[in-house]
């Protein structure tokens, strides 16, 4: 249900067009502010949802909330976000639109999604080494 709404929202928002996403990041060129409207719209709905959440004992369909508790701002967070931004700028796609585009532009979206799986798998390998696992 949530996924279907999310996918339809992405399609409506124009974010499944890599050129438009790239345009948002292209501040010195042909800047396209659309992405800011998408994020603004989503935050506009989510902010009251968090307020409602703070007054609920448990979610409607589960006995407890499962929310991130990490507070630490560390090099992993910033390094990861930095690397993610590089990929976002190169391809004009982040995970949501990349996956949803499997429905509309299968071949290029599948290449992106496959590479994303590869990147995640490489991370797991390196992370396991670092943790001595």
């Amino acid at each position, binding site marked *: 249900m*949530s*996924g*279907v709404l*999310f*996918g*339809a*929202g*992405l*399609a409506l928002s124009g974010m*499944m067009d*890599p*050129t*438009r996403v*790239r345009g948002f990041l*292209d501040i010195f*060129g042909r800047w396209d502010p*659309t992405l800011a*409207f998408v994020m603004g*719209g*989503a*935050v506009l*709905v989510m902010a009251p*949802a968090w307020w409602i959440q703070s007054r609920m004992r*448990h*979610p409607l*369909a*589960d006995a407890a909330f*499962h929310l991130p508790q990490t507070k630490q701002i560390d090099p*992993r*967070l*910033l*390094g*990861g*976000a*930095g*690397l*993610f*931004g*590089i*990929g976002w*700028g*190169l*391809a*004009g*796609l*982040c*995970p*949501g639109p990349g996956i*949803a585009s*499997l429905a*509309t*532009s299968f071949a290029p979206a599948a290449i*992106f999604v496959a*590479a*994303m799986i*590869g*990147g995640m798998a*490489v*991370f*797991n390998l390196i992370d396991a080494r670092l943790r001595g696992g």
Partner: protein
Amino acid sequence: MLAWFPYAQPVGGLLGGLMIGLAAAVMLLGDGRIAGVSGMFSRAFGLNRSATPWAIAALFVAGLVIGALLFVGINGPIAAHYPPGIGWLIAGGLFVGYGTRLGSGCTSGHGVCGMSRLSPRSLLATATFILSGMVTVAIVNLLGGAW
């Protein structure tokens, strides 16, 4: 001010954004979880050790594709211009995959869910990936690789 950006799509963007927010709210208030695409995706493919049940992650990821499919089925095709050559997609995908695992989230988890929660981690992560994306695009343009 928007007259300066004739190619922008503010209405569609805002409506789509509201819908994405609603989707994230359904996940939060219904299942009690963050609708983070990179997290759900890596969980569905067995690439992280999150406690999220596999079925929830897999249904969410499948829903993304089904939602987009329904939208184009009802509304007709959407515009999508891809980079020239698969190298961009492969390199982009690798960085996106690695970066979202290391940084625990992407545009949906940090950008939509985390920022609206005023999580300092997510605010900083979002600022970082937007900045790094802008720098990346600027460098690509300087090197003559604009598309």
